[in-house]
């Protein structure tokens, strides 16, 4: 029950390829144009997504897909919205996989590694099989960030896990039965709030605003008509692109 014309926008591109390949969606064969992503090819085949489709841009982690190729024992993975179909591909989507997540209060805890170990003792069940890294569609070294967490190096774990889109595929494969991405999330938040130095200029600005320092200046702007405002706008001093961070404007009246 849709209100749109179905040939709009996205789907237009799905009609462009003439050359067909065969894919097997959960074992059932469909002929779809070569060069389409798995997501668009399934729509071409007539599927309408409810689950397994979010951003359509490779960043939300909704569309994790596993597949095999003919005559090849390897398990392949990809994001359906990013992976191009191949002839003979056998695929299924895994849009949801149960994962253990521990609740915690970021305010109440410190930055010690033990805070995380207490919540996720299964961390130490890692057998270093590296199945998680192999399966990660974002090419993250999952095993390495888990190792960094075990070593208590949260900054390193934050850096290594930063591109995680929480698709859950690593959890599907984990021999240690842990939910790596939830653990990494907790670690990143500890890093961001308790390890990385806080921005002193940020706090200073918030305090300055609270004193009402800019209230009058902004009120004056609000009182201007369009022409007056345009004038002030056009006269504003531009910070040069290549200027260093400590660049200072000539006019400091409104700082």
């Amino acid at each position, binding site marked *: 029950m849709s209100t*749109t014309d179905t040939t709009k926008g*996205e789907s237009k591109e799905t009609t462009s390829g003439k050359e067909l390949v065969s894919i097997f969606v959960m074992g059932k064969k469909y002929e779809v144009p070569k060069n389409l992503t798995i997501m668009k090819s399934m729509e071409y085949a007539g599927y309408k997504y409810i689950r397994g489709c979010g951003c359509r841009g490779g960043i939300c982690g909704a569309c994790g897909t596993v597949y095999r190729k003919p005559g090849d024992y390897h398990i392949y993975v990809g994001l359906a919205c990013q992976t191009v179909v191949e002839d003979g591909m056998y695929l299924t989507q895994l849009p949801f996989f149960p994962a253990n997540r521990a*609740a915690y209060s970021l305010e109440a805890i410190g930055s010690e590694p033990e805070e995380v170990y207490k919540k996720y003792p299964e961390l130490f069940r890692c057998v270093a099989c590296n199945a998680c890294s192999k399966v990660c569609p974002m090419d993250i070294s999952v095993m390495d960030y888990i190792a960094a967490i075990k070593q208590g190096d949260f900054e390193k774990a934050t850096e290594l896990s930063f591109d995680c889109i929480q698709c859950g595929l690593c959890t599907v494969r984990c021999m240690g039965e842990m939910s790596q991405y939830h653990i990494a999330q907790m670690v990143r938040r500890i890093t961001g709030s308790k390890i990385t*130095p806080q921005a002193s*200029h*940020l706090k200073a600005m918030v305090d300055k605003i609270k004193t009402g320092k800019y209230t009058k200046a902004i009120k004056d702007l609000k009182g201007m008509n369009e022409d007056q405002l345009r004038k002030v706008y056009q006269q*504003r001093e531009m910070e040069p692109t290549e200027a260093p961070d400590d660049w200072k404007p000539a006019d400091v009246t409104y*700082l």
Partner: protein
Amino acid sequence: MPYPQELKELIKVVEKTRPERVAKKKKNEEVPFLSLEERKKILDYHPDFKEEGRREIKVGPSKGYRIAHEMVDVLEANSRVNPDLVDLSHADYETDVLVIGGGGAGTSAALLAQEQGAKVIIATKLRHGDANTMMAEGGIQAATKGWKDSPYYHYLDVMGGGHFKNIPDLVDTLVTEAPDAILWMEKHGCNFSKFQDGTLKTLHGGGTCRKRMHFAADITGVEIMRTIRDEARNRSQDIRVIEFSPAVELILNEKGECSGALLYNMETEEYFIVKAKAVIMATGGSGRLHIQNFMTTNHYGATADGIVIAYRAGVGISFLHTVQYHPTGVVFPEQAEGILITEKFRGSGANLVNIDGQQFVNEREPRDLEAAAIIKECVEKGKGVPAPTGKFGIWLDSPMIDALSGTGTVEKEFPGKFILYKRFGIDISKEPMLIYPTLHYQNGGLEFKNTGETALPGLFVAGEVGGGIHGENRLMGNSLLDILVFGRIAGKNAADYAKSRSDMGKLTLDHVRTYHKNLEEAGIETDRVAPMLLPDYTLPHVKERQLTACYVGTLR
């Protein structure tokens, strides 16, 4: 797929002019910005100025307003349910605050409402966090550097970007609350990119006079969204999340106060009644309406639902006559079509160049002008670069960034896009990207005040679904800001409102009946149904075979 030979040949032209352009950048020599006169002229090429692209809406609180056909289509449509069949004498869920939409605005609203002591339900269409918020890459604006910037300058930039049409009170609140929103995120453990001493890194965005774009590598939206989602999960005793259950109507009471919503479980196709003392609309944007057939950067669920259902309940709309086309969406490779290439590439020094390798616009103009300039260069001047798909594009010269800031900068600062292109066999630190404008942001939306309140008592608005903050054009980095600032305000005020409300009255869907009647009286006979919920990408060859005339069991 890597660039085919024809494009590789054309890339050589770009390479030829690159050294000179890099040298100019280093000397801070820029293509002059457009004067206000020139701005006016170039905007003729913007899709918003195509009169045949819009029509007057014939019913509802903003009757007579001319907006895009696609938007009018969903507004002049019937409800998904027959109000007579809905039994409102009982509620399936009861709560203090119901948040509709689990993106950044909805989630921050839920957190603040909970902090006021409210029990909260978030009802969302896809998974919690599958939203436009997750897709934001470039950054978030706030004047946090007191030695060179202040809310005063931020205010000017927002107004200038919005063509001075923005609602001043909304802009005031946006820029004044901005630093506090960033501080709030920092406290929650959001990892913004920083210098060693904790100073936040900032860049320019289109239309900014000071570098105030904060970012978390090139996945700022992901980092913000997953942080606040994690926090909401920590509070799951008070914040309940119901996924794959979009709202399809608001529910009012006999006094005309918003008192809940009707949810649709897309998997079982059942409808559920939520009774709530206050409701926050945070359903985001509408890129999936594919206005004027443009490709879009938006997530799968961006179908204007919140606008449709609040409009039916009496909330007016504004600024919807303008739509934001992001100047740089991928045209090639085809699999990535529509995907956004963040402005940060331009902020970091990449030029836009035509088929002759020549610059034709300063890369730091506001978005609408930038988009119009690209369309003009391709459509009128014929200087577009032909893609193998038959479409045209313009080069975004990303290798300049490595030339300016050192080898490896592109890979380090733009890991997401670097990987995306690498999968297609393209190294964007060595080869430029082919881009064209893509449908990106709603600009306008539901009318609301800087308290989050709307004309409908009990209904609050936050995020992209609202209109007025950004006037006729939003600057990059101001909507991630908008969702945090106004999400928090709506959350707090909705919780306060819920606290003060004792009597729920009698639930009704009479406003839906009235709306149906108004459609009829306006002579609109249609079988269109809205909210749309999900875009329809089923192709004609499939549709032709979908012949079911009569459903047994569940109805679709």
